[in-house]
């Protein structure tokens, strides 16, 4: 069994000091750095005490996955290799996590879809793997451009699903994500999503924690299910495997385990609130008009609000940080005064608007849009126009030369 004494304050083989995670994230000095989102992923993983990272090339996550290879070459990660497909990679991640490792991987778009069979298995096996999803189109004809449709497929896998807006979110949430998903009463995988290119390939100023400080290592013996390393007794798991039994006991066992997975998602709520300072961020939610968004649609919404303010229209903002656990109470509270709720999204189906409609009373207040998809950008002006149209105001048609 692992040592039970604390490792806090001791050093790893790279000379990094295992630091109390709360102090690392909230009290350690921060240095502003000008990095791409991909480089920020690397910097977060440098501090994450990861045992195994498994990579596969797919735009727009290839750069991050390759940069983590450099970390491995430098000795910051226990093992690293390129798998043969996303389906295989996610199974390799499962194997490493079953074996007690802290595991990290990245994927995108069609890769997420190809690997999909693994995700409910990860959750059902209680594997706290962290997967970065740099969202891109999953439609045909082939597209590599930003589009968040793939997130909707992840929502019912039993994974935790968070949606980062900025590179700063990414840096903080990668580290905080392990703290939430490795809690014994959670112990579930985390899909940490962002909008591909917009976050991965743009440079931003990100406040980094000191590189000489890192998270304490994962302790697999705090898992609610046995780690598959033959370090605890290998007992017979069940008399008859439930897969072949068509009887009530079998159904009840499967049903109760599925319920337990979703109960664990619920139990992650308190930890997520603790680490993320709430599941949503709000601004001016006493306004009649509120924009609710996740990912970079939040940034565009913020710009739209600024433009509307110039015209004397006051508008509030809700940034949804976690999609699973779903901030039902928070969104209901934040939108209780709103007469109009706008949900700008980077996908064709408007899955976030549907989730919100299912959450709040009087859901006719929800305007599902604007939507852009297939890689189109979302100029704040189209959000402004959507709002003005709904309110019966005159639209602004000056889109050209808007300089953004």
């Amino acid at each position, binding site marked *: 069994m692992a040592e039970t004494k604390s490792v806090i304050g001791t050093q790893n083989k790279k000379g990094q000091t295992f630091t109390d995670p709360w102090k690392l994230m909230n009290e350690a000095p921060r240095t502003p750095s000008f990095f791409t989102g991909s480089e920020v992923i690397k910097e977060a993983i440098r501090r994450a005490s990861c045992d195994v990272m498994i990579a596969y090339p797919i735009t727009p996550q290839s750069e991050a996955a390759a940069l983590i290879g450099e970390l491995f070459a430098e000795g910051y990660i226990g093992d690293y290799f390129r798998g043969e497909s996303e389906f295989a990679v996610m199974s390799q991640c499962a194997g490493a996590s079953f*074996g007690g490792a802290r595991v990290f991987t990245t994927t995108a778009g069609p890769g997420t879809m190809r690997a999909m069979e693994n995700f409910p298995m990860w959750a059902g096996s209680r594997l706290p793997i962290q997967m970065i999803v740099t969202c891109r189109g999953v439609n045909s004809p082939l597209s590599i451009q930003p589009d968040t449709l793939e997130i909707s497929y992840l929502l019912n896998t039993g994974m935790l699903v968070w949606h980062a807006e900025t590179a700063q979110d990414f840096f903080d949430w990668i580290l905080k994500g392990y703290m939430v998903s490795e809690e014994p009463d959670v112990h579930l995988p985390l899909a940490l999503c962002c909008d591909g290119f917009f976050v991965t390939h743009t440079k931003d100023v990100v406040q980094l924690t000191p590189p000489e400080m890192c998270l304490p290592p994962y302790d697999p013996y705090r898992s609610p299910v046995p780690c598959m390393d033959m370090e605890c007794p290998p007992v017979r798991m*069940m008399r008859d495997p439930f897969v072949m039994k068509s009887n009530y006991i079998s159904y009840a066992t499967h049903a109760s385990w599925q319920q337990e997975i979703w109960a664990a998602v619920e139990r992650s709520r308190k930890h997520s609130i603790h680490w993320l300072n709430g599941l949503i961020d709000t601004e001016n939610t006493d306004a009649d008009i509120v924009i609710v968004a996740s990912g970079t649609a939040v940034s565009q919404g913020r710009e739209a609000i600024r433009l509307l303010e110039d015209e004397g229209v006051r508008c509030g903002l809700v940034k949804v940080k976690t999609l699973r656990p779903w901030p039902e109470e928070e969104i209901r509270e934040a939108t209780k005064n709103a007469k109009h709720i706008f949900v700008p999204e980077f996908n064709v189906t408007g899955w976030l608007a549907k989730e919100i409609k299912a959450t709040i009373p009087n859901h006719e207040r929800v305007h599902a849009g604007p939507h852009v998809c297939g890689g189109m950008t979302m100029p704040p002006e189209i959000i402004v126009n959507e709002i003005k149209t709904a309110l019966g105001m005159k639209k602004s048609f000056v889109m050209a030369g808007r300089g953004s």
Partner: protein
Amino acid sequence: MSKERIQISEDLYDIMPSDYQDLVKSATYGKEDRGWKDIGTSKELIEQHSLCAGCPESMAFRYILASLPNPEDTVMVGSTGCTSLVFPMVAVHNIHSLFGNQNAVASGLKRALSVRFPDRVKDVVVLAGDGATVDIGLDMTLQAWFRQEKFTTICFDNELYANTGGQESGLMQKGFVAKMAPVGKLFDKVRLPEIARESGCHYVVNCTVSKPSLVEKVIRNAVHVAREIGPTYLQLYTPCILEIGKNSMEGLQEMRDSEKPTERFAYKEFVSEPAKQLLAELAAKDKERKAAAKQLAGKA
């Protein structure tokens, strides 16, 4: 794992299941010369099973579990199929996740165990059916070999999809009429042992499980070579008596008939040069150990 880990607290002894008490009392974890001959005199690492009466797979399971050289530090990876009905009753840690991904899971597992236990031996053994190994999982089977992942892959070849009711598989013989092959299978049995050799496996054997001593030998060799050198592959004929129209008593004869020199399960072996050297060293050590034991017994 040290054997102390499975000890039962005295206060709880009487409420523990009898099969667990038996494991503590008389399983062969840690016994250096464990093998198929322990069956019947010690607690086996398989507790019952829900396979069909007379299924050769159940024999194979028992021989393999009796022969693993290091069960106290072995983790097995299975796949969906008849084998997944047995694994929940096996007293070594084992993983079932999806259908066909067993060699990918084992790759991640072996690497995690190597990172976590750099100074200890942790063996990984994959055991899956032919559908999992050769059809749906072929990509991951081969890629693990290309990458020289250090674990053993065992394929229980019953030449069809048994658990789903007898459909055509890649390892089925050409011409065999089965579900999904209504006019007979149109292409040859996939030659995975040859492919394994070309894909980088260091020890490859194709045989039946009619002889427990042979199973013991190839399992020990395969695990030792995988531990020290690189990937190994065993393709074991475990006929599905149900789907080929045999009775429960006829499994053994079916295997004997199929291992004749001209038949498809005639013993076939490939050993790479480094593996040959390793096996020779192990054989020499084994001989030395036996001689020493004999001498000691003589003195006593």
